[in-house]
Structures are given as structure tokens and as C-alpha cells.
């Protein structure tokens, strides 16, 4: 088995955005669409200002709500972990944008589809590595397979100051002066998703099923009764 994960050492990130650009070039994206983003954080007050960078992209959640709401199955979680979009099947309904807690998705108006980082899943299948990781000038990025005990990612993420974004495939290491709040929050299913999946949807389905059953029963009973009546009339005449 394979279980892909991604580690970013933000204490090494120089904020050069080479990853963003490499990704855009690889995926043929418009400049306005960035699968991986680099945000500058400023800490402290002048003149003691420290600057640092936080990179974000799709976190390839363990139980991705974007896939749960997708009406066509265009978005799905692969067995190896990455969450993928099959663009031919995407109808551009944007449900997934609403469901994603990490603002990882962008609507591409020209193509009429929603786009996001794919973990370079197609490249992984061919034995290559993600473009962002390959481009990173400072070696801040590392992709690996958690199910492979010899993968170098284990050494990186076992360090005590590495933060796992719970419920996702991402691990970060922060520079000392930046705190946890700068990173994406741990994954938490939304209350709306919970209410929908465990209350409204099952209740609605039971309701629709019983309405249909009641109508069919009534139809059968009344058809039977009227046949009986016709039969009686035939007998009389």
C-alpha cells in the first residue's frame, strides 16, 4: 500500500514562489489561478520585524468533504491518499468550493470547471515527483510515502517540532517566531455536513420512500376495488 504525505519546512522557505510558478507552468494555468500559494507573515513591530512565509495548497484531507458533495464523482479520494478531480466529469457546480474548509479550490470561468492541486498524482503514477517539491530552491518541501518504512519523510516528520494538520496529508515545521495559528487548522467536519449527512438526508429519503409506498398502496387498493365493482356490474347485466 501507498499513503502519500507532504512535509513543508517553513523555516527553510524563502518565499520565492518558485513552487507556485512551476505548478502553474506544469498545469498550464492562468496567472490568476494558483494551486499552491505563498503568503508572507510579518511578526513584531518596527524595527524588530521578522518576516516569514506560509505555503498552502489542497491538504488532501483524509475524509474530503469536497468529494462527498460532488454530484458527479468528478472529485474523489484515490486509494493512495491524494484527492483528484477528473476535469471531464466536472460540471462546474462549485459545491466543492463551498465544502472545502481550506479555500484550496478555484473556479476556472474560462473552462467552466473547478481546479485545485492534484498532488501531481499523474506524475506519481509515472514514478515522478510533484513539481513544487522538485522546484523548491531551499529544499523546504518533501513528499513521501508513509507506508514505506524506508522513506526519508519519516525522519523529517518524526522531529518533535513538526506539526501534523490533523485529518489531512500535510505536515509542517514552523520557524521559531511563528505560532501554530499561522498554519491551516486541524480538519473538522462542518456542522452543516453533519446535519445533512446524518439527519436531513436520511429523514428525507425515508419520507420520500414512504410517500411513494403510500401512493402505490393506495393505487393498488383502489384499482382492486374498482375492478371488483366492474365485476359486480358485469354480473348484474
Amino acid at each position, binding site marked *: 500500500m501507498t499513503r502519500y504525505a507532504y512535509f513543508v519546512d517553513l523555516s527553510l522557505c524563502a518565499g520565492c514562489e518558485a513552487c507556485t510558478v512551476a505548478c502553474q507552468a506544469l498545469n498550464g494555468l492562468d496567472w490568476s489561478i494558483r494551486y499552491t500559494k505563498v503568503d508572507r507573515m510579518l511578526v513584531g513591530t518596527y524595527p524588530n520585524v521578522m518576516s516569514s512565509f506560509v505555503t498552502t495548497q489542497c491538504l488532501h484531507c483524509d475524509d474530503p468533504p469536497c468529494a462527498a458533495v460532488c*454530484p*458527479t464523482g468528478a472529485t474523489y479520494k484515490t486509494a493512495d491518499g491524494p484527492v483528484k478531480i477528473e476535469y471531464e*466529469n466536472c460540471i462546474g457546480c462549485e459545491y466543492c*468550493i463551498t465544502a*472545502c474548509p481550506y479555500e484550496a479550490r478555484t473556479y476556472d470561468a474560462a473552462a467552466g470547471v473547478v481546479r485545485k492541486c492534484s498532488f501531481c498524482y499523474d506524475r506519481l503514477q509515472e514514478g515522478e515527483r510533484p513539481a513544487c517539491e522538485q522546484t523548491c530552491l531551499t529544499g523546504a518541501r518533501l513528499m513521501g510515502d508513509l507506508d514505506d518504512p524506508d522513506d526519508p519523510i519519516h525522519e523529517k516528520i518524526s522531529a518533535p517540532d513538526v506539526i501534523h494538520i490533523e485529518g489531512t496529508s500535510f505536515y509542517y515545521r514552523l520557524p521559531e517566531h511563528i505560532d501554530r495559528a499561522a498554519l491551516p487548522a486541524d480538519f473538522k467536519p*462542518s456542522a*452543516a455536513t453533519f446535519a445533512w449527512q446524518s439527519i*436531513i438526508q436520511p429523514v*428525507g429519503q425515508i419520507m420520500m420512500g414512504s410517500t411513494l409506498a403510500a401512493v402505490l398502496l393506495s393505487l393498488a*387498493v383502489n384499482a382492486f376495488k374498482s375492478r371488483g365493482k366492474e365485476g359486480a356490474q358485469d354480473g348484474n347485466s
Partner: protein
Amino acid sequence: MATARIGARVPAREEAAVQQDKVYRFSLASRLAHWNHALTFLLLLFTGMGLVARGISGLVGPEGLRFFGQLHRWAAVPFTVLTIPILFFGARKAALRWINEVFRFDRDDLRFFPAFVREFFGMKAESPPQGKFNAGEKINSILQIIGWPTMVITGWMMVYKTSFPPAVMQWVIMVHSGMAMLLGCAVLGHIYLATLMPGFREGLSGMISGWVPAKWAKDHYRKWYKEITGE
């Protein structure tokens, strides 16, 4: 001939027109409003269901589903803008009466339900006297009166999904689909009663020509029949 003379009288108001064996139930404007609401609703329900039921989406494919999405938006326009103006300009009095009546339930209305259930499943039942709308129609009307603005508001918000915070849209989408299921149940029962169920399907002509058989009206809407005929 007597019938011809009475028939020549144009039934302008739905309150009072009576012929020998027929009574006038719904004016042209009331019927137009009903059918605009009903037909656009059914189209919306069908194209909307395609987005939830994986079976339908698998059948029509992504291109088909995109087309459904477009149809859904187009059908939403007459659904949203036509019904109220038709009622306002064409059947103001009747519409106000309807709204007034359907929210009031008296003892006879409450006693309607057990009798209805028995009748629905083919058992003998004595239905209590009803007004212009029976208690079941009142429930259906209330669902439509609440459901219409709910679907319109949440629906148009969904057209501009990304202009609202995702946390808000998650609830909006849920309300839209939950209400669609509720209204879908109501319409299934409604169509069955109106087209197939003996004792109820006789009323369909009221929504087509406006007229219903007098005897049927007397049996099923005793209080209304008395109000318009004095009998």
C-alpha cells in the same frame, strides 16, 4: 334553452358562478398561476434531482448534468417572477381568500385527516364538511406558501455561491435540498390525488376549465357549496 342562457353569462368571479350541474371554482388567472407554479416546479424538481441522485447523474453524464443545471436556472425565472404578479393582477381577491383560509383549521378540518387516511387506503369513511379547500389542500398550500420563498431565496443565492461565505452556503444548500425533498413528497401525493384517486380526481377539471361537477362539490366541499349556492 335555460342552460344556454345561464352559460352565456361570463363567469368573471370565482366566488359565485353556478350552472345546473357545474360550479365555477377557479378563474383563468388562478389557473394560470397554478400551472405556472406547477410546471416550472416540476421542471425544477426534475433537473434539481439530477444533481443529488447519483443514478440520474450517471445516466445523463456530465454534459447532460450541465444542461440540467442550465435548465434549472431558466425554469427558476418564471417560477420566481410570474406567479405573484398573475395572482396580484388577475385574482387578487381569490388569492387573499386562499391565504386567509388555508391557515385556519377548525374542528372539521382536524377530523378530515383520519377520514382521509381511511379513504386513501380504500376503507369506508365519512369526511366532515369542508370549506373551499379541504384540510389536506390547506397543508399543501401552506407548504407551497413557505416553500416558494425558501426555494427562491436559497436558489438565487446558490447561483452566486461564491459571493457568500462558505459556512453560510453550506446551510443554504442544505435548506434548498431538504425543502426540495419535502416539496417533492407533497407534489407526489398531490398529483396522485388530482389525477388518479377516485373522489379527488374529479376536481382536476377545476384547474383546467375552471368548472367542477356540482354534485362532487356538494359532497366534498359542503361549506363552500353552501356559500356559493345557498343550498
